[in-house]
């Protein structure tokens, strides 16, 4: 662990990447569904303020285009930018993502899917991961669980395995407003907090999906306060 922290610090110093950013695993919680013919443009951001007890403030932004491939696969390509300590947003890398729907919604005890991701960060650092997506509906409530295992490699860091867990339980109150509670856990993240989700129909198969959440860190490696938000324009 100490060696990994040192390695990341070295990469950070060499490439201008904040050491903490690597371990900040707060992100969107995925659902195991794919809609054929679906296309979307997405913006996501996540970060923590300056007084979050882990150093300078950080904001990470992602802009993506995604589309369904056939009936069961969805591919998405992200450009990633990062801003630290109030500095201007700078390109940080890219991500490619492939989501697969394994089971028909409602067919079994729970719905299942798979997620594959490949990331390249500034400084020639790579991460590949694969994960299982699960969703269980219980009346007006729905719980999504994401479990993933990844490997990180590249210049200046040791090849190592990383695990992530994200759990979201949401109340399906109305299409526009669904309150939720989320838990995010990874090597350097343990955070819990409320989130809200919703979707606005714009007609003619266009929709705007939004998500936002604020989280409290549950250990001293996690920012005391952090946040995430996202918008998806589906068409």
């Amino acid at each position, binding site marked *: 662990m100490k060696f990994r922290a040192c390695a990341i610090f070295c990469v950070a110093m060499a490439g201008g990447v904040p050491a903490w950013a690597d371990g900040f695993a707060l992100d969107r919680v995925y659902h195991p*569904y794919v*809609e*054929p*013919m*679906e296309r979307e443009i997405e913006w996501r951001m996540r970060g923590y303020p300056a007084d979050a007890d882990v150093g300078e403030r950080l904001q990470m932004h992602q802009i993506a285009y995604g589309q369904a491939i056939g009936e069961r696969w969805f591919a998405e390509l992200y450009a990633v930018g990062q801003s630290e300590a109030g500095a201007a947003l700078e390109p940080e890398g890219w991500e490619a993502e492939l989501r697969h729907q394994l089971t*028909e*919604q*409602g*067919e079994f005890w729970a719905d299942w899917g798979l997620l594959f991701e490949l990331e390249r960060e500034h400084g020639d650092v790579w991460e590949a991961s694969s994960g299982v997506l699960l969703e269980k*509906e219980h009346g007006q409530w*729905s719980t999504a669980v994401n479990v993933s295992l990844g490997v990180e490699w590249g210049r200046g860091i040791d090849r190592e395995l990383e695990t992530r867990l994200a759990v979201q339980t949401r109340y*399906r109150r*109305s*299409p526009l407003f669904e309150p939720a509670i989320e838990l995010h856990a990874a090597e350097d993240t343990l955070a819990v907090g409320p989130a809200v989700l919703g979707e606005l129909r714009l007609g003619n*198969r266009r929709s705007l999906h939004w998500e936002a959440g604020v989280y409290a860190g549950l250990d001293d490696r996690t920012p005391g306060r952090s946040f995430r938000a996202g918008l998806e324009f589906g068409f």
Partner: protein
Amino acid sequence: MRKLLGVFGAICGATAVLAGPPEFQLEIRDHLFFPAELVVPANTKVRLLVINADPTAEEFESYELNREKIIPGGRKAVVFIGPLAPGEYPFFGEFFPKTAQGKVIAR
């Protein structure tokens, strides 16, 4: 005799499990759902076979049923719904929402 009845009962039970949930059909034709009101048993999971007889795609969508499913033109798709509490659950076709409307009635 009792043993024989037991074996017969087990086979019937296994057949029922293998047969899966009861199936209902819904057809999309001229951007309308047929039937527009579909009665299904309450508290039972059902398999809904949606047949799109139109040449254009349509989406079976219902927030109340928590389902969204696109069915390309001339194709079929399966939507599992329930178990539902007794009541009415509206659905619509997102491609032609003005005409393609209906409801599932669980009773």
